């Protein structure tokens, strides 16, 4: 399989503190990859470096040339006076691709994430609905790589199930997905493999169905020792 994303000995320091330490990853096309770890493990910084939101102190990050990236943040903010369709229209405009501003296309993305009623303003949205909207806007460019920071956080059981199904569908479409999540059941449900990070370093890898130990047990064993 083709490498969509390669991180080669990537380091990130903030004022002398190493937050990502010598990180190397190969994420292949169509793979659903998990970044796991406790708070402060360096997962979000890794995502930020991949997205270009912060520069790596050293090392190389290579993304497949033609790849488009969609990103759904952990705590998204959308102007509360806008409706979901207006938010979608806004980000479609920011993309600069006129074809993506097509209303029926944007509506299809909202339908896909379970936000069919587009007349409700964001200020009346629950946290889960905002999370879904974040996912919808990440899909506008029809990305090859989808980076999702806690995509199921704040969702109720039904919402989580819906989102996980959506992720599976996106995987079937051949999209490469990188997920940062605390909810290990969700990771097990959709991810193919992942890394467990601690203090900026990869301390172990995880591959679905490869071990008899559940991800949760492994995680607690490795991360919960402190």
């Amino acid at each position, binding site marked *: 399989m083709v490498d969509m994303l390669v991180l080669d000995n990537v380091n990130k320091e903030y004022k002398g503190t190493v937050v990502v330490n010598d990180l190397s990853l190969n994420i292949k096309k169509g793979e659903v990859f998990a970044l796991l770890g406790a708070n402060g493990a360096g997962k979000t910084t890794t995502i930020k470096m991949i997205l270009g939101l912060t520069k790596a102190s050293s090392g190389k990050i290579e993304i497949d040339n033609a790849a488009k990236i969609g990103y759904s943040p952990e705590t998204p903010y959308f*102007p509360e006076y806008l409706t979901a369709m207006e938010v979608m229209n806004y*980000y479609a405009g*920011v993309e600069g691709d006129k074809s993506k501003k097509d209303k029926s296309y944007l509506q299809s993305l909202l339908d896909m994430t379970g936000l069919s009623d587009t007349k409700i303003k964001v200020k009346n949205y629950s946290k889960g609905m905002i999370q879904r909207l974040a996912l919808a806007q990440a899909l506008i460019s029809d990305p090859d790589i989808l980076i999702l920071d806690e995509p199921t956080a704040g969702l109720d059981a039904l919402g989580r199930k819906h989102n996980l199904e959506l992720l599976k569908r996106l995987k079937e479409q051949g999209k490469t997905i990188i997920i940062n999540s605390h909810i290990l059941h969700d990771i097990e449900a959709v991810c193919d493999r992942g890394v467990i990070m601690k203090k900026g370093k990869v301390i172990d890898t995880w591959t679905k169905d490869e071990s008899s130990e559940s991800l949760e047990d492994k995680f607690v064993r490795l991360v919960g020792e402190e």
Partner: protein
Amino acid sequence: MEITLNVIREKIRKKMLYVTTALGIIVVAVFSTDMGSLTVGGRSINDYHVLLPILINVLNFLNGAIALAISCSTIPLEYERRTSHLIWSRGISQGRYHMSLTVGNLVTSWISGIILYMTLGVFAVIKGYADILGKIAVAAVFMMLYAAIICMLTSALSIRIPTLFTGTIMVIILVFGAFRNALNLLTATLTGIGAVVIKRAIRLIPNLAGISTQAGNLVQEKPLNAHVIIMALLMIWIAGLLVMIVKREEA
């Protein structure tokens, strides 16, 4: 374009814009109603031809304050809310992003200024001075220059400096710039090395008073000082360049 429009839309929804605009309307109304025995240069201040240069100064200053208030938090708030993540991750350069936000601030300030000048026009008509409406319209162009300087400098500073500091620095620039003539007069009384340093520092402050004076000259059919206008444009150009080149380390 979308980013700019979104800023305008958001600012128009903020109550602050309405409060400050209402304040401006009150100022125009107060000046336009009977001012009793107040005179300027021996002429009654109720004469709109006398009043206009004064009102231009007051309204430009007021609109400058509105421009400052509108601009100082726009960019920091984008980063605080992490809206910036969704823009940077779409490959939009910082220069383009910051400029789009700044233009949004600018257009909103202009909208506010135009409302103030329209109020001035309405009161002029009520008072029977419909003949000066054209002059008021031309004076509004100078208001746009004035607001652009404040808006763009504030936006440029706000990229890297915390909002409180940006606000403080810009309030000083606004007040010193609006009262630069008085400042020149005060510093002219000083002597010594310190005075030379202060005078040089004052030259760096945008000549906002000069812009209002040119608008006043225009409405009173006095000659304009092209240098003041060109320096104002240069100041806007510098601020624009800063908006495009000053960068954040992180989104």
